[in-house]
């Protein structure tokens, strides 16, 4: 089912949690809503679920306006952050609950629930109470309960945040596997960019209630359309260099100029740590710190107010306090206005 958000807004008293958000989520895709805490991502999900009614705009499922429809009637499945399994019911009763609410016959409901339990691999736990399950198992029960009615939309609200690091990896692959198996349109809220970038078809990046970029994960990383996106995505974070545009020419700190169609202004050039490299020419900086990150060696250069990070190539060594020249290639630099908007360089 295609989900269309048209200019939706949500105001709580005086604060605007979601501001004029418009986006179309394609059918059968897994889309992550990503952003820092308080950016309105959960609010957006709750509006999709019908638990909040937007204060402005409209929500369409396959061209059908559902803005005013209550959650009971939207026919969606949802997994909550704390799973919200009914503590007094067994696993089987939990999974059967949505079917029971829709007046399905008991035998049939049981059959379907067991089928679903098999899909999420918890069919050996059917008689347990939620309190007797581990976090990962509770998660699976919650997914089974959300999917048992075969909804056309699955919503997940930070489903992995209560799990430990190892389990998180397994469960996110599980979610992807189940989503692919059922071809269900899935919206997944997370504050963990690695999670979002690794399993999503599209990522919806939000900040302060606004849509920043809706794109495929690789574009979010390589072609950020705003300085916020550039800074938010990627770890270690983006490096910034001050530069000037004078008469259609961008004067880079790396010693070369680029033709650019933009009025005269101060801009910032962004370069990813892996695209910055040591050279014999370019920008001169002092090495402040060298640290080993897994298989890579990360060097921190610059002064206190403007630190930059770069990964050393194999065989390269630098000493703390040493002066080095750093360089970045033309096709790897991204230019942003002082206000944050991207200036595109013509090829």
């Amino acid at each position, binding site marked *: 089912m295609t989900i269309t958000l048209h200019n939706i807004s949500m105001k709580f008293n005086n604060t605007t949690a979601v501001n004029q958000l418009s986006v179309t989520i394609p059918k059968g895709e897994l889309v992550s809503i990503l952003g820092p805490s308080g950016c309105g991502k959960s609010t957006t999900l709750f509006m999709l*679920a*019908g*638990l909040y009614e937007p204060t402005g705009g409209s929500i369409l499922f396959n061209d059908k306006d559902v803005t005013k429809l*209550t*959650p*009971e009637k939207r026919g*969606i*499945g*949802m997994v*909550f*952050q*704390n799973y*919200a399994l*009914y*503590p*007094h019911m067994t696993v089987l009763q939990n999974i059967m*609950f*949505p079917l029971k*609410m*829709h007046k399905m016959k008991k035998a049939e409901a049981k059959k379907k629930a067991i089928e679903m339990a098999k899909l999420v691999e918890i069919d050996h736990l059917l008689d347990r*109470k*939620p*309190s007797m399950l581990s976090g990962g198992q509770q998660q699976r029960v919650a997914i089974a*309960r*959300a999917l048992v*009615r075969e909804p056309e939309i699955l919503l997940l609200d930070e489903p992995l945040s209560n799990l430990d690091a190892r389990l998180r990896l397994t469960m996110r692959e599980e979610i992807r596997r189940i989503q692919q198996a059922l071809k269900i349109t899935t919206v997944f809220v997370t504050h963990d960019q690695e999670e979002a970038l690794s399993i999503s078809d599209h990522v919806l990046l939000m900040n302060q209630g606004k849509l920043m970029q809706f794109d495929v994960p690789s574009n979010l990383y390589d072609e950020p359309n705003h300085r916020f996106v550039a800074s938010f995505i990627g770890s270690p974070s983006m490096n910034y260099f001050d530069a000037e545009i004078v008469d259609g020419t961008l004067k880079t700190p790396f010693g070369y100029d680029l033709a650019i169609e933009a009025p005269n202004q101060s801009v910032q050039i962004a370069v990813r740590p892996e695209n910055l490299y040591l050279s014999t020419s370019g920008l001169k900086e002092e090495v402040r710190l060298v640290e080993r990150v897994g298989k890579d060696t990360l060097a921190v250069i610059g002064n206190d107010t403007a630190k930059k990070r770069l990964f050393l190539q194999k065989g390269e060594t630098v000493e703390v306090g040493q002066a080095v020249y750093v360089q970045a290639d033309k096709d790897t630099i991204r230019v942003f206005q002082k206000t944050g908007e991207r200036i595109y360089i013509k090829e």
Partner: protein
Amino acid sequence: MKLKDTAKAFLYLFPALLIIGVFVIYPMIKSFLMSFYADYDFFNDVVYRYGLDNFIYLWNDEVFHQALRNTFIFVLGVVPISIILSLWIALMLNSITVLSKFFRTVYFIPFVTSVVAVSIVWRWIFHSNYGIMNYFLGLFGIDPIQWLTSTEWAMPALIILSIWKGLGYNIIIFLAGLQTIGDSYYNAARIDGANRWSRFIHVTLPQLAPTTFFITIISIINSFKVFDEIYALFDGQAGPSNSALTVVYYVFNKFYGEWDFGVASAAAYVLFLIIFIFTLIQFYISKKKITY
């Protein structure tokens, strides 16, 4: 070290233990023994014979039977209605946002007000000629009821007063219980397609079960022990021709009225046994039903 800690703890507990010992433990033991006094000279505090005579007396005493009957009617009349009503009011109070503190206070006032003062007001409310109750009933064309002076209406009047009196406490406990139920359960239930009634049945009630259990036990125990309301409402009587005589009132009459300490103690222990059995049954049921 351990002994020293224990001694220290005991020292701290001693003042409280002393008071509890003198005013609770000693009377309990003493009254237990008293219930077996068969032949007793209370001027000289000499017991000539111990025996089950007091219990046999109770077994045959019509008045005690009536007290038991009245007590059970009272418990059955008060507890279920009080619990249902207070749960309903708690649900309403939980869902209002404006003036919620004010309304909570209003409902709690009966609980903190003195029983005697409350009963005097209710005596006026129940008054057969000038009472507001009969006035309202009159609006619906119902003839005046002799609330406090007829044998068949004394007990209903007492039950109405007691329900009203206990509401505030039950409501506060229910409200506390309701607030422990997370919103996410209601949200999940809505997503699962549960309407308002289904959410109440499948989310609120089961998760409120421990609270309901607590309130049931407390209400039953309190109702079995009813006394002050009767004393104040019927002006020191147990209702017209003992129509509101309860077990505690019977104990009171035997003890202070007839100075029959043995029978009074025996009756008190019969009541204790009844309450004890009820509580055991409830614990047994709750262990089977409340399992999470």
